[in-house]
């Protein structure tokens, strides 16, 4: 049988990719919007609906960042509400292992799994920065290098607690607990893993059922799949024990040109002039609002010190070396005669993953499936419900025509949807 693609939607919680200013959007934070989206995904036979996590509202120079959509529910609570309004769709909560307690989180996840009849998933992430930790009892307690050590012990405790009593007493995990929730029809929540660092990949190879990877382009996806299968073999797990669902954005059009124009228009709106200034402010560490986004780069020197992590968008590896980066940008802007706005559009690493007619995108995805470099995609919409309606109504039928996408649900649990062993 032809390999089947599995699709999820990552409901946009924060960030510039979501075009909140578009009049077609439904109320982004209303429960009715979530219910309607989840029901549309069931109509489109999707595997899963994902909620992200960000435990501190992003800031720009000490004040709440004003330009992007913000304000989101607690994931497990919201997905529990959706469990009561849906019957098939998998419900996946991103939850970090740094600022949670293993027994408490394991219990809440098992509870979601139970009320949804076996449709829960846990997208395991780590949080390293003390800036986020300032919202918690023991902020900043965990060293960056040890975050996956903690994550591994945390996940092992949670998994153990889903089958029996657990007692652990290390310097990273301390608990004594007994199971409090009966197993769901899928036994335990499906485990997703999202980190792309070596530590993250090891955690995935040991414990994950699904990886939500950042490697979407074909070559990167193929290399990632090969790396993951090596790691799985080393941990004694079969090559098909883990589903690979990279994140992706899709822009469809009636013709290739129409799709390309739409993609360009969306990108222009995602990185608008105000966001371009705010982007540079992170690196300059000072107010740049006096500079014209359509003019040359700021001629003032950046503030001393490392990058401000408070936007929550810069990984720790990119928090140093800002002076070199700014120098490179100056040279690039000089060479190509770019304004602030143009430069940021050039250097911001967000690009649409798939742009084309529904038939073109379906052909491309069918190739990914045939070559087994991914098992599907986790889509990030730029409009809600616009992007989702478009994928369900226009792309899904093309995938079905190519025999790479289900025509009905054959199971009821998330584990069954994903065809996991």
């Amino acid at each position, binding site marked *: 049988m032809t390999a089947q693609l599995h699709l999820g939607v990552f409901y946009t919680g924060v960030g510039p990719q979501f075009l*909140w*200013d578009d009049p077609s959007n439904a109320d982004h*934070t209303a*429960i009715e919007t979530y*219910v309607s989206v989840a029901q549309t995904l069931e109509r489109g036979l999707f595997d899963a609906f994902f909620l992200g996590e*960000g435990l*501190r*509202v992003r800031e720009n120079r000490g*004040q*709440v*960042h*004003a*330009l992007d*959509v*913000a*304000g*989101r*529910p*607690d994931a*497990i*609570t*919201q997905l*529990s*509400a*959706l469990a*009561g*309004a849906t019957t098939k769709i998998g419900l996946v909560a991103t939850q970090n292992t740094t*600022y*949670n*307690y293993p*027994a*408490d989180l394991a*219990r*809440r996840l098992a*509870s*979601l799994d*139970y*009320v*949804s*009849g076996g449709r829960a998933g846990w997208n395991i992430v780590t949080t390293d920065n003390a800036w986020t930790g*300032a*919202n*918690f*009892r*023991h*902020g900043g307690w965990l060293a960056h290098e040890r975050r996956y050590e903690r994550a591994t012990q945390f996940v092992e405790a949670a998994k153990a607690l889903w089958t029996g009593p657990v007692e652990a*007493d290390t310097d990273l*995990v*301390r*608990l*004594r*607990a007994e*199971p*409090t*929730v*009966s197993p769901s029809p899928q036994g335990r929540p499906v485990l997703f893993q999202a980190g792309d660092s070596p530590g993250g990949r090891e955690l995935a190879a040991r414990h994950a059922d699904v990886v939500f990877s950042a490697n979407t382009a074909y070559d990167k996806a193929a290399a990632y799949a090969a790396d993951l299968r090596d790691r799985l073999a080393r941990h004694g797990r079969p090559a098909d024990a883990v589903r690979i669902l990279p994140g992706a954005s899709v822009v469809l059009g009636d013709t290739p040109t129409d799709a390309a124009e739409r993609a360009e228009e969306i990108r222009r709106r995602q990185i*608008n*002039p*105000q*966001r371009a200034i705010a982007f540079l402010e992170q690196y300059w560490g000072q107010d740049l609002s006096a500079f014209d986004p359509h003019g040359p780069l700021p001629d003032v020197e950046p503030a001393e010190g490392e990058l401000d992590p408070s936007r929550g968008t810069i990984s720790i590896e990119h928090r140093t070396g800002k002076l070199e980066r700014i120098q490179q940008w100056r040279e690039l802007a000089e060479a190509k005669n770019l304004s602030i706005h143009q430069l940021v559009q050039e250097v911001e690493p967000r690009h649409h993953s798939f742009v084309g007619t529904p038939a073109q995108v379906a052909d491309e995805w069918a190739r990914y499936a045939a070559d087994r470099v991914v098992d599907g995609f986790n889509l990030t919409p730029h409009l809600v419900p616009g992007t989702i309606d478009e994928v369900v109504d226009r792309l899904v039928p093309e995938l079905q025509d190519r025999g790479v996408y289900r025509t009905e649900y054959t199971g009821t649990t998330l584990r069954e949807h994903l065809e996991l062993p």
Partner: protein
Amino acid sequence: MSSPKTLHLAVELDSAGAPPGADPHVLADVVADAERAGFTFATFDDAPAGGFRVEATVRAAYSATSTSRIGLAPTSHVLTAEPFHLAAQLASLDHATHGRAAWIVGTAATPEALATIGRAHPDDLRQEVADVVETIRRLWDSWEDDAVIKDLATGRYLDPDKVHHVDFEGETFSVKGPLITPRPPQGSLVVLAAEEFADVVRPDIVLTDDLRHRDQTAPLVFGELEVRFDSTEPSPNGRTRYTGSPAGLVTLLDQLDLDGVRLHPGANDLPVLSQEVLPELHRRGLLTPPEPGATLRSTLGLPRPENRFAVSSKGIA
């Protein structure tokens, strides 16, 4: 605040045919029955350890979209959780119900409960309860009601002057804020606490086992009453237990000088309450079921609180 002719009835579902490990469809049916019967709110008891029970905010949230009138009140425990997570969970429940959520402040501090998060007993339990509740109330206020502006001219989704750090500094923890979740529709969820913690929680509703007294400083006082129509056994919990006929219960409830009563029926008693007791109370004009679309606060006659940060920002910055 109470009128002697109005009584609010709440129902605890743990023993009312929806035990905490019940099949989710059974839970949904029981909550729907309680809504149809005219209860003001349903409560979902919880404990971090000791026995099988689906976590209470999950059970309450699961019932959110299939109900439209009844309030949903989970117990969440403050000593075994992160205050920030509790604030977001409860605010999210209020959003998902359009303002029908309440919170029963749980204070479990047994060795088994504390061991689930590997912590010691607090040096000052009452102070920590007070600190967690204060933190959560601040976090609920951290977004002003009109913080989201969607201003196309400036490209601003929200007004950063209306989203606030809460800067709680307690003896044992501190929390910066703001919350990730916008302000709950009710401003603050309806907060309930047992009598012994009323002074540190300052609840909207105090729960008392003493059905006769009402020298309380809380806005509303609810009595706790077990109901077993088919048993004469005393309560194993030391609560007052009613064991007579449905008509006798109507008479008892009619005579109480309380704002409300939380009933703890057994599995077979909820249908009798729904079909005989509540209709009779309704007929006598003693009970007014909640209106569709009303918030729990408005049903209970409780005001929507001012936002403390909005008030302070009106001052001299």
